[in-house]
């Protein structure tokens, strides 16, 4: 049997690029009030994508192919205090 501990992850087709994941996540958050406001005020969501502990710059999104077991984290910007 298979037991899930923590996040079950997310299915992508073999050969998917990080840019596919980014697009899917940005679409999922399209109605998020905070992300919407950030886009309106600053022109960008400020989301940061981290693959296996490494921050990936947007210009690399299209070059990175996802592998089984990759650990992708999405970091949000919170700059209030």
């Amino acid at each position: 049997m298979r037991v899930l501990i923590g996040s079950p992850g997310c299915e992508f087709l073999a050969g998917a690029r990080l840019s596919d994941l980014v697009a899917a996540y940005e679409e999922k958050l399209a109605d998020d009030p905070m992300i919407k406001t950030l886009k309106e005020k600053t022109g960008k969501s400020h989301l940061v994508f981290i693959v296996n502990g490494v921050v990936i710059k947007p210009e690399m999104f299209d070059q990175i192919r996802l592998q089984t077991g990759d650990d992708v984290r999405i970091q949000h910007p919170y700059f209030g205090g």
Partner: protein
Amino acid sequence: MMNDPNDRYKKQIIFHGLGAEGQARLRASSVLIAGVGALGSMLGHLLVRAGVGRVRLVDRDRVELGNLHRQILFDEEDVAQNVFKAQAAGRKLRMTNSQVQIQAEVLEISQSNIDQLMADVDLTLDALDNIPTRLVINDAALRLRKPWIHCGVLGSRGNVALMIPGRTPCLRCLFPNVQPSDNIPWIDTIGILGTIPAFAATLAANEALKFLSGNHAALAPGMIQFDLWSNEFEIIPLQGPAQDCVCVRMTSAV
């Protein structure tokens, strides 16, 4: 009773992670709390009560009514008196723990004063409300090779990350596309619950206690990120500094 510091701290000295030795290390340590708003109030409250030996509080603003729902060191009298946050916080924290040396300074943190503010403390805690000043702290930390804890909040969400120059990513590594010009009045624009900075500052103070007491193995292995409205909490694992970040050059220079 007031003369025996161990009476004050006996419940935390019993805690296995701290002990008398850890408590002594806290007493011998010093911090800068950069900003005395919601995050800074809670950080001061926790670290002064915990017995950190010297606490420097820096903020340029005065207490306003709209601060009271989340800035726990202030009250209506402070608003009526139009006092500076650093002074009001300093006065209350001295009453809380007279054994701690409190240095309250009313000033705006800038390139011209940050080195002096950070140079003689063991750890800086980011309790700011904007990007440009956070970058000032980030770059000073790299120049001085001083550790600091980034702490930021918005809405129902927050981030906390310990940054050690040369070992962990810096703020520019973590947010490579953030520019000072991206700055917006974050909380005025998005809003904030009072619980959020209290929680974020508690996490940051907790990391500070581990760091200052020498419990480095217990430190969070990455950046803590949470959303208390959607019940999410995670630690984002991070490798070292980004190889193309300015921090690598700054910390490897002789």
